[in-house]
């Protein structure tokens, strides 16, 4: 029984990996002050494209590179329309997400159901035999390992390095970043495209690994991009919190499947759909400290309890980069 749970948990880590790529990509983009709302479409399009390229070229690497390139290109469209043409990022992103989704289904039609390559599992010798941890973390494929590295690297870059601090500054107050010597718009282009490339890798991670193959509308990827956007907010634009959010979502999904036999009287759809409202609840919990009625409710509690809850809520609370979604004009 323990073994089954352990394998299940290892599965959660694997399932969360593409969401982590997408979420961290979006986190980096939004840290620079740009919203890339096209995630859902980008993931579908790159899943299809990555799969097709891998099938045609028989190269997994080329499949991923194709995904990254397409993701970066979609991000470039967002960057150009919002930074250079100063159009609404929300409107453009929304249209792009629909366009990319339909393109994926349309262009992917001839390749539906083809057999394709799949990333092999790559247990790390020496580490894989450590009890518990070995099964959980070191009997995965290379992209899962890369997702661990990505979490740490993104965190380190944003919070520990000089360019990372400037990245925060650009999204927070571009005018102040500008007087400190930043080329705000160029950096926004670069970070938007890097973020887009990371999102573009998430697609093939599904079609070449987690949900291998391309099955058109029943591939079951529609919606993942929106979840990644929600997790970006849940994660407070912090890669480690975002990763935690991705694991939480994967756990909820897994529970939905595992618990189904034990709750025969509940329609199976309820458990399948449950992770989505639960994510909304989680979001609510994270940001509940921002609301006035909580302040009012807390005011009625005894002092020690009030202070404790207030501290927990403050620690959970997240605020978006202040200039998120607004173009920067240097006077």
């Amino acid at each position, binding site marked *: 029984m323990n073994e089954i749970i352990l394998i299940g948990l290892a599965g959660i880590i694997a399932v969360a990996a593409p969401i982590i790529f997408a979420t961290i990509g979006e986190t980096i983009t939004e840290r620079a002050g740009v919203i890339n709302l096209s995630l859902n479409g980008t993931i579908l399009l790159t899943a299809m494209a990555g799969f097709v390229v891998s099938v045609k070229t028989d190269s997994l690497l080329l499949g991923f590179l194709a995904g990254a390139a397409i993701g970066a290109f979609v991000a470039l469209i967002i960057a150009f329309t919002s930074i250079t043409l100063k159009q609404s990022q929300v409107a453009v992103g929304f249209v792009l997400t629909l366009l990319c989704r339909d393109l994926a289904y349309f262009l992917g039609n001839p390749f539906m159901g083809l057999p394709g390559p799949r990333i092999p599992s790559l247990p790390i010798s020496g580490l894989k035999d450590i009890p518990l941890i070995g099964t959980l973390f070191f009997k995965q494929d290379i992209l899962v390992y890369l997702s661990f590295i990505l979490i740490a690297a993104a965190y380190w870059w944003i919070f*520990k390095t*000089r360019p990372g*601090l400037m990245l925060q500054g650009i999204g*927070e*107050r571009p005018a102040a*970043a*500008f*007087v400190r*010597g930043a080329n705000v718009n160029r950096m926004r282009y670069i970070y938007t495209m890097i973020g887009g490339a990371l999102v573009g890798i998430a697609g093939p991670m599904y079609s070449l690994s987690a949900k291998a193959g391309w099955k058109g509308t029943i591939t079951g990827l529609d919606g993942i991009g929106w979840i990644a956007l929600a997790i970006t907010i849940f994660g407070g634009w912090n890669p480690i919190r975002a990763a935690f959010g991705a694991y939480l979502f994967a756990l909820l999904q897994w529970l939905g499947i595992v618990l189904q036999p034990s709750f025969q009287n509940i329609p199976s759809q309820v458990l399948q759909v449950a992770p989505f409202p639960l994510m909304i609840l989680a979001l609510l919990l994270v940001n509940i400290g921002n609301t006035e009625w909580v302040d009012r409710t807390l005011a009625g509690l005894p002092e020690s309890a009030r202070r404790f809850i207030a501290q927990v809520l403050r620690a959970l609370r997240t605020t978006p980069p202040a200039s998120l979604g607004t173009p920067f004009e240097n*006077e």
Partner: protein
Amino acid sequence: MKVEIKNIHKHFGKVHANNDISMTIQPGTIQGILGENGAGKSTLMKILSGFYQADKGEIRLDGKLTRIKSPADAIKHGVGMLHQDPLDFPPMPVIDNLIIGQSGGLLPNRKVVRKQFEDLQARFNFKIDPDAYVDSLTVGERQQLEILRLLWLGAKVLILDEPTTGISASQKEMLFATLKILASQGMSVIFVSHKLDEVEQLCNQVAVFRQGKNVGQAMPPYRTPQLVQLMFGKSMELAPRIDSTSCDVLVHMKDLAVENYRLHISGINLDICKGEVIGLAGMEGSGQRLFLQACTGLRRTVGGKLYIGQRDFTGKPYHQFLNSQVSYVPASRLEEGLISGLSLTEHFILAGEQQGFIINRDKALKLTESRIKDFSIRGIPETRVESLSGGNQQRALLALLRSPLQLLLLEHPTRGLDIESSMWIWNMLKERCKTGTAIIFTSSDLDEVLHYSDRILVFFGGKVSNPLNAGSTTVDSLGQLIGGKGWEN
């Protein structure tokens, strides 16, 4: 650092924002730059700090011809600017605010930065916690942080753009003390302001800007009238005071009494002449507002009689006052006076200039345009009132008043406004007095009350003084009355 500015020109479209400006600032001096809004002060400062490039002219730093390409370039040359709203990153820690923009390798050395910051702080006796988040600091502390940051980056010229707007009096003292220390250490400080008293208090020399030109320099001891004349191109003189013993009586109050849940004021006897200005002095909440509201029908009197132009207005509703040319301009411009979210044009439409059901937009637009011009409001007909500055909101409020008026009641007509707007508004009000309008106003600025009133009523704890002649009253005696001294019984 010695700063020489020579023959600087800058155009924005048709506007000649800087017209052949030259000045020299010696190391160790605090140079004041005085001028009303739009005089070209900020433009010159932005040229000096790299935001703009001059169309013509040159800048020399320590004698060396320098082209300043960007704000980041300016600080490399030793020119640092403290903006009115400090350009920092509120949700980030103080130490990160310092590191952003510091040149160096991939990984900043926080320990070294912290040590340098603490050393610098000690020099000025500042007490900013390097681990605090910037949004937990006061505006004054954020200014201190910016000054320290600029010094840390090697600034030898410090430009301050209207730095005293958002800070408390004690923080202002501290800022001025800091600037004096900096000047004594050989820094050049440029202090841009429209506040005469601050410039007079702080600066070693003052340049006055008007309409894009440097119209004159002054050295201490400063003569205020001379500076005012330079700023506005004309001196401001007042009409002679009205003799209240022999005049046309407009308002007649007999044993008037007003009250609210807290105060009861009774026995007000006063005759107000046409064209007279009555100032109401007293601590906030001593009954001035009560009295004003009674005069405009917004509050029912509880005793006595009120006549305006021979007619009995006792107990009449606000509407009748309004129709008899009595207007009231409340203190809170956006809450009671104007409607946030509506444009200037919409305000003029609402102010009842048009009758009928369907709005004639063209007509309204024309009217608004002419009023904007007459009242020199900085805005266009489509401008929403909340985006106007305080002075322009007040002008808009006055522009909305009907003409002619018999009685005009104002609460704090110039509170929060700069000197130019205040003077402009009082000129406008005095013009109205010439047409026979009587004015009653409240103000917490004693100088304003003494300067512009013909007679003054002092309010204290439910009591009202007899009218005092403004010409023979001093700030001191007024202050004593306001503080509750010198009242009989």
